[in-house]
């Protein structure tokens, strides 16, 4: 499939010249390696009005560019791996371990920042929460699924 805007997208940088050094600096602070797993669906279904953007391909391109900025960030790509509810998706895996952290959809605009900060959090050896919060969460005896609906603007 050839996308009408594929040529435009290919040359559009993910990070601006002023953003890249800041992102590098954030990723340099990672205390442990973080792997990003890009999960593609069985086929791409463009949304009406999406101007033929291939969300899966764009998601992968963002992750590739992010991984290129730090030795501590790696990525792999799979089609329909276990543990995903929809596609495209990114799993953030500190030390390659699945803590259940997902980003569903293309992380563009404002949400690219959320993904980067998610990687930064995953890169900490200790969660950046108050000690009493960590204590309360450690006592949790049932499963919780938290979904946060976001928009790119």
């Amino acid at each position: 499939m050839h996308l009408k805007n594929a040529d435009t997208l290919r040359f559009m940088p993910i990070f601006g010249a002023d953003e890249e050094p800041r992102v590098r600096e954030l990723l340099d602070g990672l205390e442990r390696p973080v792997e990003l797993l890009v999960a593609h669906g069985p086929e791409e279904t463009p949304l009406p009005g999406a101007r033929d953007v291939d969300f899966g391909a764009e998601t992968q391109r963002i992750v590739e560019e992010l991984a290129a900025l730090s030795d501590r960030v790696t990525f792999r790509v799979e089609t329909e791996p276990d543990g995903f509810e929809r596609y495209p998706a990114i799993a953030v895996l500190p030390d390659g371990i699945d803590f259940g952290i997902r980003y569903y959809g293309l992380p563009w605009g404002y949400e690219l920042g959320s993904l980067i900060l998610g990687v930064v959090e995953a890169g900490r050896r200790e969660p950046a929460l108050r000690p009493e919060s960590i204590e309360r969460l450690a006592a949790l005896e049932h499963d919780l699924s938290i979904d946060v609906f976001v928009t790119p603007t």
Partner: protein
Amino acid sequence: MLLAYKTALASPRIRASAIESTEFPALADAMDVWAVPRIVVNGVPQWDGAVPERVFLDRILAPAFE
């Protein structure tokens, strides 16, 4: 969003997902997403907007989710 990720990192019992609403409109409609961020716990819509850490924990650790 970050608080949800942080809690997932702190507890093996918690999974945290960000979901881009415009890309999954049917799901966003089902969860009555109008303002963002909209927080959904165990498939049930809860509240909109950022809250302080203690309030976030009070809400997700409420007895209703046990």
